[in-house]
């Protein structure tokens, strides 16, 4: 019986064999890391049995593995939520996939992958973008803020607070996109950016005070199938104006305060 504990002399291996062993060792290491993190111990046991034969090819502690070969690989450095992240990516990877699949930032959602629903909205250099229509490689050196980067520790961003206060969601799936969109939209208004509804389109850009119709116009790219729109508008209005929004559709007889039923 072969003693697998004995490390074979590397000279006995062909180049191909070395490559295979290196790859297997790498995938096993990655696999174990994932398994221990996700407690799929049973699965680990099954797959480990299959891999046992290779288990004792010890990997040097300081080994550096190339990531699984990327086609059309490009190096991109992004400043994401205040942290610089260097990535090697297929040049065709969208910002959304880079965030979700490479960086573990799954708050941004893939609702349609066609720029039609707004669930993937993130903020790049202060402007809202649809991350499903943005190639990650075009964001080199840019600052990206996702839903995960809005709160400062336990302190929620005012827009997050307002969405909770006015129940601006039901299932929550469109919510990260709605909130990122709303945050950047209010900055657009501050910068005096115009919309289809803007009345004064001449002169120097100055901060715009938004009516509800303006809020709707500027938020019309973010869909919510649960239909929480009135509450979304209210939440944004409160953050925009700094004043509390009276409920317009309270139980009629109970007035403005959310009285007990």
């Amino acid at each position, binding site marked *: 019986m072969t003693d697998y504990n004995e490390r074979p002399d590397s000279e006995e291996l062909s180049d191909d064999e070395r490559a295979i062993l290196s790859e297997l060792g790498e995938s096993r290491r990655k696999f174990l890391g994932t398994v221990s993190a996700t407690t799929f111990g049973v699965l680990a046991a099954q797959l480990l049995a299959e891999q046992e034969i290779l288990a004792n090819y010890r990997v040097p502690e300081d080994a550096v593995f190339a990531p699984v070969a990327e086609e059309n690989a490009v190096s991109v450095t992004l400043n994401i939520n205040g942290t610089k992240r260097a990535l090697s990516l297929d040049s065709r990877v969208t910002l959304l996939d880079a965030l979700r699949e490479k960086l573990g930032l799954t708050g941004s959602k893939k*609702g349609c992958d*066609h720029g039609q629903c707004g669930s993937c909205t993130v903020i790049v250099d202060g402007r809202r973008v649809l991350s499903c229509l943005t190639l990650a490689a075009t964001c080199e050196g840019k600052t990206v803020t996702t839903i995960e980067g809005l709160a400062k520790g336990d302190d929620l961003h005012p827009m997050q607070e307002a969405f909770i206060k006015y129940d601006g969601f039901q299932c*929550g799936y469109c919510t990260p996109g709605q909130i990122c969109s709303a945050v950047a939209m209010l900055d657009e208004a501050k910068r005096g950016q115009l919309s289809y509804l803007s009345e004064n389109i001449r002169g120097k850009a100055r901060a715009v005070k938004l009516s509800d119709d303006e809020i709707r116009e500027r938020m019309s790219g973010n*869909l919510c*199938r649960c*239909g929480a729109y009135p509450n979304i508008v209210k939440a944004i209005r409160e953050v925009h104006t700094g004043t509390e929004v009276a409920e317009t559709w309270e139980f*009629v007889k109970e007035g403005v305060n959310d009285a007990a039923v």
Partner: protein
Amino acid sequence: MKNLDSKSHVRGESVYLDDIPVVEGTLYACVFDSPVAHGKLRSVNTDEAASAPGVVRVITANDLIGENQIGGILPDEPLLANGEVHFCGMPIAVVLAESDEQARAAASLVKAEIEPLEAIVDAREAFAKGSLIAAPKRFKLGDTEKAFESCAHVFEGKTRSGGQEHLYIETQGAYTLPSETGGLRVFSSTQGPTAVQKAVASVTGIPMNLIEVDVTRLGGGFGGKEDQANAWAAICAVSTQLTKRPVKYSLHRMEDMRMTGKRHPYSSDYRIGLDADLRIVAYDVVFYQNAGASCDLSLPVLERTLFHCTNSYFIPNVSAVAYSCKTNLPPNTAFRGFGGPQGMFVIESAIAHAADALGVDRDEIQRRNLLSSGDELPYGQIVESEAREAWSQADSVYDFATLKKEADEFNKTGGHLKKGVAMMPICFGISFTKTPMNQARSLVHVYTDGSVAVSTGAVEMGQGVNTKIAQVAASVFGISIEKVKVHTTNTLRIANTSPTAASAAADLNGKATQIACEKILERLNEVAAELELESWPPVGTGSGGDRQIGPPEGETPNWVELVNEAHLRRVNLSEHAHYATPGVGFDWSVAKGHPFAYHVFGTAIVGATVDCLRGTYEFDYVKCCHDFGQSMNSAVDRGQIEGGIVQGIGWMTIEEVVYDSEGRLRSNALSTYKIPDVYSVPDEIAIEALETTRPNLAVFNSKAVGEPPLMYGIGAYFAIREAVKAFDKENLPAFDAPFTAEKVLMNLHRS
């Protein structure tokens, strides 16, 4: 009480199916689906796909170890096409690859040789050709033939209502992992974990006790993930079984729209007879439901159409027949309202027809025929009605006459804008109409630190069911809600669940939780008695709902001491309780019974403004008086009303599902299928709670609220119609929903 998921939702930390961290070695699935609506599947060539980069395996029907069958009600739905294809989008092969991109790229390389057969896309055409899912269903009350003879006025006509794409923003998906001794762990975006478990068991041949289905939450369901989640979980399960590797499939939006069924389109014939006092004496209706290529949930949907065919009205003589017509479309399925809205649209159209012909206001006929307590419904149940109360309370708060007068005055001033006003009463039965499904279980553990874990069969999908269940536990135990955690829906913890559907999940699972908590509390109080302590909870707590849950500050040291004392005395701090709705039943052999625990009532008034040059419209208001019973969570319930109204308006106005004559979906993306956006919401939504004290079978008397408000949206159709009539009195638009802007324009200016 806020939805308990609020904080994680706004931080982007809520986990949905596609957010579950994948295990190294996971394969990605992609389906190759039929490009033809009906045909003989001569051959499937997977060679090229199988040799594409990253592809590990391609699976076709022949590879299945279990049965090629996922039909829940009738065994008429193969998982993968074998011999024939029945609709465009029917899965034929599954490609498994190391990455999502590789799987998708390779799926396009599968080749199928299909000999086209004639495709049927229309329900009436299917009926004419004898293509039915099952025998027709009938309801009969009184004697319509005789009654029509005595009627002063009789009118007949046709209606159509369109399909509706669910468009949950989270698409369908599943992720399966192999587990010990040949079992499977299945994460699924489903409203029906047990339905998924059964479908997986069927296609893999693995017994249910080795299949764990786990659901954290859905990014929207609306009925679309009741049975239609099964296929994707079954595909992943089969793939894991054959490759021994984890498999994930999260559908692309266009795959989802193309391959899954929608709300059933209906085509119907009606005949309505009234006496001289505008009382509806007789109603004859025939429904042709477009079921798609297999049964799915079409039969229970069809039944609920019959149950709601007279909406909120008492009609002494009713004859209703419903045909489920088999066509070559994706199997149509549950959608909020479950056939009820389709039935109500027809009676509302018949009433509008009569009102037009008699020159009276539509609401005059509606009001005179509302149900009273003690009236018999066409299916034999004697109703406890709040219909008249809801109508008159709405009228007294909103003043129908003034709203109508304002619209009339506006319309007299001329101009291209016209206003229309329509009343919409609703009556919706709560319970699964299939009686055995009205049961649920709850598993409650109290831990020695005083925290409580609850598991039920209910699936959280934004409707706040977990929040309500946590409220029940906190309320019974008299502790703060922060101490309660409602865990994922998991078939190992709760078995044989009914799907989260029929608006009934909070009632069934809430009641089961209440029973479990009460049993534990009883045991705790035996301990308290032995210790000569006052009974728990202290006076003034535990009265339920928004009103008061637990001691105000949340800290409950006595609770923890009591729990610990009980544990030391070896008292069981866990309970698995069962609840079955009492008193419900239905006998299809005579089509009579008492299928519903109770009914939800309400009346809405909808105001629309139509631009008569462009055909576009806006909704000025929807004001309703709604029967909540006694709402246990006003924030959640108001959200359900708001969302239901918006979705109902969408179905009646802008959402148009279009298949071409060859059965291909033309409204196949968000660019071609329009759902309500932030502009589509009425300028004002006013909600008045109907004041009722009548005890009911709802949890804490808080009536089910998921589906009923959708039907207020039907009023939107008739409000637009009134505005079109105001533009041209002679113009009586056909009853053909949705009333898209295009259709409105054609109606305004037909030469």
